[in-house]
């Protein structure tokens, strides 16, 4: 995959059409359907691989990635609050977005590594799931302390049983139980069509990202800078963590990508309900309008180079 890979081109097509205010738009049901397919595909593939792996090896990575999910927003928050001069709830909410992950970015990274025949640790989809939760907790606590008002039970139910987690974890379990041969009859949809489905998904993501640009203009340069520089910082943290955990080049790259990506589904929904005084336009426009395009167009190839560097020097 080069910058000229068709899936990136579809994203660019969406961006351009959106900027030109084309009436092009995928029906919401189709967009949702594509998301479901991507989540299941990623889960299945991870699950099949996972079957080959002793469970004990997961403990270290899981715990340290979870820790990363707690720490990244804690770094982002003071930058947003004191450099960016955002109000407390806004700074907390944006920070939470960047502690979490974007499944769309992860899917593109999967396709990118596949196109270069680079493998990565099979438990990566699990990391996507694990990173969903801590950032939300940290965001809420940053915004309002450990408040009695927060209905933690309801919240954790909503996050843990959200579409993303259920399909990723469910897909992994199915892949794990059914194994490579078991999954074969359903491979034509979930594996053979993966890249084309990702292309359509990115077309719509380009349109959505473009629609965020007008809000961005209102909130100024700081947010744009943050949306590029903080992911770069996070990628270094993620990559370094991968190296410490003894991961392969592919794994290091993946962890860098996960760290660098910002949520635009689970976290916004959770923040809207728990920290309603945060302005949702701020966080979504930087996550979708800056960081997502940056990662797709520039970040992912960069993180691979970085992983190569690290692994070369480290290994």
């Amino acid at each position, binding site marked *: 995959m080069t910058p000229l890979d068709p899936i990136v081109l579809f994203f660019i097509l969406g961006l351009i059409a959106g900027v030109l205010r084309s009436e092009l*738009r995928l029906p*919401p049901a189709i967009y*949702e359907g594509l998301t479901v397919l991507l989540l299941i595909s990623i889960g299945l593939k991870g699950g099949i691989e996972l079957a080959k792996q002793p469970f004990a090896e997961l403990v270290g990575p899981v715990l340290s990635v979870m820790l990363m999910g707690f720490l990244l927003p804690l770094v982002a928050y003071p930058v947003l609050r004191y450099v960016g001069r955002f109000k407390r709830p806004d700074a907390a909410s944006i920070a939470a977005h960047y502690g979490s992950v974007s499944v769309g970015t992860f899917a593109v990274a999967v396709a990118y590594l596949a196109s270069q025949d680079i493998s990565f640790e099979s438990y990566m989809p699990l990391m996507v799931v694990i990173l969903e939760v801590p950032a939300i907790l940290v965001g809420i606590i940053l915004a309002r302390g450990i408040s009695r008002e927060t209905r933690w039970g309801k919240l954790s139910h909503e996050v843990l049983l959200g579409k993303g987690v259920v399909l990723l974890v469910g897909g992994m379990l199915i892949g794990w139980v059914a194994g490579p041969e078991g999954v074969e009859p359903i491979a034509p949809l979930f594996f053979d069509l993966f890249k084309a489905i990702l292309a359509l998904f990115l077309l719509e993501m380009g*349109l*959505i990202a473009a*629609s965020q640009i007008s809000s961005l203009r209102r909130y100024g340069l700081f947010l744009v800078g943050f949306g590029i520089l903080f992911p770069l910082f996070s990628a270094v943290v993620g990559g370094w963590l991968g190296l410490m955990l003894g991961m392969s080049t592919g794994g290091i790259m993946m962890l860098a990508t996960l760290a660098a990506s910002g949520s635009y*589904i689970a976290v*916004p*929904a959770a923040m*809207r*309900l728990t920290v*309603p*005084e945060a302005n*949702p*336009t701020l966080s*979504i426009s930087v996550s979708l309008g800056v960081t997502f395009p940056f990662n797709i167009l520039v970040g992912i190839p960069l993180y691979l180079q970085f992983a190569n560097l690290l692994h070369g020097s480290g290994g």
Partner: protein
Amino acid sequence: MSLDTRKLVTIITESALEHSLVDDFERLGAHGYTITNARGKGHRGVRDADWSTSTNIRVEVVCDATVAEAIVGHFREHYYANYAMILFMCDVEVVRPEKF
């Protein structure tokens, strides 16, 4: 045709609030509600169906004046400050008043 009068309370707000509102109605004594998907524009900008975190719902509750007042009070306190929301109401004639 002799019909009774009730209040029709209409709320237009963020779809993220759907579960909350439904719980509220139950607690505040409404016997039912009806929801449709909507898009629109107000003080918090354009909210259309394209991107799921920014769509609206249009909620209707037929109820007596006391419940209507309770809804307005509760919503004013809990949602007005931080959510895109409008609320309006009018009198309607209903056929089976015992339902509301």
